[in-house]
């Protein structure tokens, strides 16, 4: 009992320590709904301006406080820049090609011109100082190049930087803008590629809206924006009947099926005439195109079904120790055909789709037959082993009898 009393404070301390560690750990793990952690640049900005400026790209280029703020005031401090004056001040150097070439020969000098065409720039020109200017995105005293991963405008941080204003209802409501865009994008296939897989080529806000010239792309240019990456899909779409049809309806091409910010991975269930299908939004059984829709959906279902069968039998064979490399290669070819079929959906026609479907089905069948063959081979081996074991056991029994019969 006495030992228990001695141990109690230790146990209590351990419990408190563990609990506090758990709280700390929980605090560090963002919940799915929580936006990603703010850019490390925010920490740079939290430093006093003079300290933050030490790490600033401008300081390294030889600029000083006076370069932007002018001479010191009588009280020893510097004048604060008016928000409307920031972009023109930055442009004094950043729009001067001859000057900028000295520091970086290939640096662009059109940022201010772009900014003036942006919604931010136009509003600022009208004297609306609540909109973004250079320092809101790049920081004011701790500016690092965009290629520096600490930069708030490095690919992985762009969305978080935009979200500082665009996810804030207080800031967005006066402009009749939705504050949900960031959370919608965060659940998209693009955010997953950029933030989870670390693919810096995946789209973030500036990829579609532009950075300095940030503006929502109009319905007429959406297809061009998506075509920056989805080249083949856009090419097929523009040649299809849908391109003119959507244009005449004033619909933003790609957005009709894929939406804008919350872009999900495509599913074959989108295609069809049932209630859950996207096509059913405009099409029904009686309309032209119903046969194509059904054919495309059936094609996807058939291929996916056969790929699932092949995957299952190949997995079983592999788990049993069989080598099924040929089957895996065929399955890979089927998967590739499946990807190409998804692209060919943008023709909204059967013929090119059917050709690739045929290739996919042939590959899936080959994968399946390889797996089935491997399982048959496994059974053959096991039967062979059973026979061999019986022979060996028979030999052992004979030996045993022979040994027992030997004279002592």
């Amino acid at each position, binding site marked *: 009992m006495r030992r228990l009393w001695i141990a109690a404070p230790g146990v209590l301390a351990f419990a408190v320590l563990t609990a506090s560690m758990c709280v700390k750990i929980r605090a560090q793990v963002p919940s799915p709904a929580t936006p990603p952690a703010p850019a490390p640049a925010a920490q740079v900005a939290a430093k006093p301006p003079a300290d933050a400026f030490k790490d600033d790209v401008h300081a390294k280029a030889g600029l000083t406080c006076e370069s932007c703020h002018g001479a010191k005031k009588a009280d020893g401090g510097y004048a604060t820049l008016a928000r409307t004056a920031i972009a023109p001040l930055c442009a004094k150097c950043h729009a001067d090609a001859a000057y900028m070439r000295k520091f970086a020969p290939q640096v662009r000098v059109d940022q201010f011109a772009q900014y003036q065409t942006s919604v931010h720039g136009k509003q600022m020109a009208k004297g609306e100082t609540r909109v973004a200017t250079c320092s809101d995105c790049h920081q004011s005293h701790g500016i690092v190049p965009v290629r520096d991963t600490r930069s708030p405008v490095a690919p992985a941080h762009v969305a978080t930087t935009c979200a500082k204003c665009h996810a804030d209802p207080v800031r967005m409501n006066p402009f009749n803008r939705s504050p949900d865009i960031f959370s919608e994008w965060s659940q998209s296939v693009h955010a997953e590629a950029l933030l989870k897989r670390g693919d810096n080529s995946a789209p973030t806000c500036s990829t579609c809206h532009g950075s300095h010239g940030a503006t929502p792309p109009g319905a007429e240019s959406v297809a061009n924006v998506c075509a920056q990456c989805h080249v083949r899909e856009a090419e097929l779409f523009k040649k299809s009947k849908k391109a003119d049809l959507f244009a005449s309806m004033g619909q933003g091409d790609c957005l009709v099926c894929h939406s804008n910010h919350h872009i999900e991975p495509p599913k074959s269930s989108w295609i069809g005439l049932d209630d859950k299908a996207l096509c059913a939004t405009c099409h029904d059984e009686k309309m032209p195109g119903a046969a194509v829709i059904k054919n495309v959906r059936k094609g996807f279902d058939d291929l996916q079904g056969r790929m699932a069968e092949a995957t299952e039998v190949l997995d079983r064979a592999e788990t049993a*120790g*069989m*080598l099924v*490399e*040929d089957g895996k290669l065929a399955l890979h070819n089927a998967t590739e055909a499946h990807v190409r079929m998804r692209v060919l959906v943008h023709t909204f026609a059967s013929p090119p789709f059917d050709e690739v479907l045929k290739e996919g089905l042939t590959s899936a069948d080959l994968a399946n037959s390889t797996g089935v063959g491997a399982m048959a081979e496994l059974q053959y*081996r*096991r039967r*062979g*082993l059973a026979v*061999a*074991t019986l022979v*060996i*056991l028979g*030999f*052992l029994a004979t*030996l*045993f009898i*022979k*040994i027992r019969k*030997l004279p002592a």
Partner: protein
Amino acid sequence: MKSWLRERLPVAEVEAAIAHKTVPQHRYSVWYYLGGMTLFFFLVQVATGILLLLYYRPSSGEAYDSVQFIMTRVPFGWLVRSIHSWSANLMVGAAFAHMFTVIFMKAYRRPREVTWLSGVLLLFLALGFGFTGYLLPWNELSYFATRVGTDIAGVVPYVGDFMIRFLRGGPDISGATLTRFYGFHVAVLPAITTALLALHLLMVQYHGMSVPPSIEARAAREKKPVPTMPFAPHFALRDLFGWTIALALLAGLAAYLPWELGHKADPFASAPAGIQPEWYFLWTFQALKYMPAHILGIEGELVAIGVMTLGALGLVFLPFLDRNTSRSRAIVSWAAVAALAFMTLMTVLALTGGQS
């Protein structure tokens, strides 16, 4: 035919020797069969190894693909490769078991010192076969495990760097290492093993089976000779019984648990998680993990390697260290029990992920 052979070869002498050869029969006789079983696994290795040689290509670009070819395209290639891999492991297991029974039965004592020496060296050679053969399929696991294994040699002062370069044929594991290991595996080690094995078997035949001191003492007390059985056919048939069980075990393992090939080694990829050497090296691998960074100012790994080298030397010279008194025999038995317990514990810890 028989008379033709008798005229030219010492058939009659061999027949007479076999007819007169006897084997002691007592409560520990069952352990005599482990040596024969190890020999059986070695013969399986030779046979399957020759078959694998027909298709295997010892270059970093072709090794993996050639093993894959053996396993998928060559008729019964999967069985041959799987038996070779399983038999290698069972051979090392049987050799270790044989060694420990020899220690416990004190079969190394005078006049069998040469038998013991050749046996211990054969065990080291078996480990060498395992280490060099592990790399030959050129898969991810073997590549990185060999890198870790050869790194250990680098800890040895003065000659560590030379040893690494000698083993690897360069600063890192490469195609040069593979051809080197292949050369050791199929030429150097088999040549030395054949010579030592011949010596070992000759010595076993020359001195006969050793009788444990306790059995000898009991026979002396009772003033009766130790019972024996004829080598042929009594012992030979029992040996054959053991070999057949070993064959059944091999066939079952090869068919139901085919040896995996894994993924092809990529020297530029990062090391995969869970790299481990073969099970018989696991205890050293785990023991090195538990070593502190420094002991009395000396690098921990170096101390561990020093202790293991002393252990190996102690093993080699065991017949000369044991003065054959009841006290020294007891010390040897307890040291063997402690070593066996330590090796088992370390292996279990490694397999269950202790300090991984």
